[in-house]
């Protein structure tokens, strides 16, 4: 793809909010409020602030700063394939009790 025909150059994208449904189906919690780090440029931001290209057959989540592919999701009737290609980490808020195992207290 050359720069000129990249979908980025038009408005044919939405943001990470749109991926809330499929990601919650997989993770059983909301992932759009989780902060993800882009392996390409190091940007750390809520997943809602990514760019989503949702054209069949899969959904592609890209970094708004460097355009790197962060996630790809393909949904089949009975399973989903999730590639976390460009995410170094996800920071997920959890209820406090869930951290007790790490505190040593």
């Amino acid at each position, binding site marked *: 793809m050359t720069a000129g025909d990249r979908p980025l150059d*038009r*408005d*044919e*994208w*939405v*943001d*990470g*909010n*749109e991926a*809330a*449904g499929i990601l*919650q*189906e997989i993770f*059983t919690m*909301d992932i*759009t*409020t989780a902060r993800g780090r882009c392996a390409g440029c190091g940007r750390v931001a*809520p*997943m*809602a*602030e990514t760019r989503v290209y949702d054209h069949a057959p899969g959904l592609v989540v890209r970094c708004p700063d460097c355009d790197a592919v962060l996630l790809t999701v393909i949904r089949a009737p009975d399973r989903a394939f999730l590639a976390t290609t460009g995410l170094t980490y996800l920071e997920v808020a959890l209820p406090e009790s869930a951290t007790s195992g790490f505190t040593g207290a």
Partner: protein
Amino acid sequence: MARAAVQRRLTWQPATVAQVRTETESARSIVLDVPGWPGHVTGQHVDVRLTAEDGYAAQRSYSVASAPELDRLELTVQRVPDGEVSPYLADVAEAGDQLEIRGPVGGYFTWRPEAVEPVLLVAGGSGIVPLMSMIRGRAAANSRVPFRLVYSARTPDDVIYAQELSRRVRDDRGLDVAFAYTRGTPAGWPRPPGRLDAALLAEVGWPADFIPAVYICGPTGFVEAAANLLVAQGHEPQRIKTERFGPTGDREAAA
């Protein structure tokens, strides 16, 4: 209003059209009965799936328009000509029809009545829908937090919820609404039609010093432009939440 958090796995569930209501020439509201619907947080959306007789399925996201309620929710859909899903919802669906929904989803573009900071809502076209849920939810929760809505529409006839908005400006204490028209204005309107610009936002929005929570929703290009204008006016990017609905077939429709 949310049911006690029984952990249920998110999945598709059946919804029945209870009622449809014409909002504008191109938009309708659709009331859905969903047994077991847990309510939502204002700003959240659902995914809607339509399945044809041959099994072909198409799904799209639609914001919840109503205030949180159990077993029932309302969407508002603007027809995109030649679209796959919106013409059915905006023109064809009628009471008794069945479809499937998945939700409520999305924890980012949300407003909760416990919040105390002033709120600036910026809508382009159908981007009013989740913001209307916030306005309705604010009234339902008796919140007095100052809300200011800037709503960009093509013409006065394209304004969704026009009557309800003027009633609420009168009755809901602390709610202000300003309109911006991109194509045609009422007679004697002080501004010529045009895109939402820095001067208008500075005039009708909250100053950045008030540190408002900002919610911008509408076509992708509109949201980008409005967010950039507000950042240039000193609003902190972290306080600006955005939700993009996709392309506008017609770039001037709302932006």
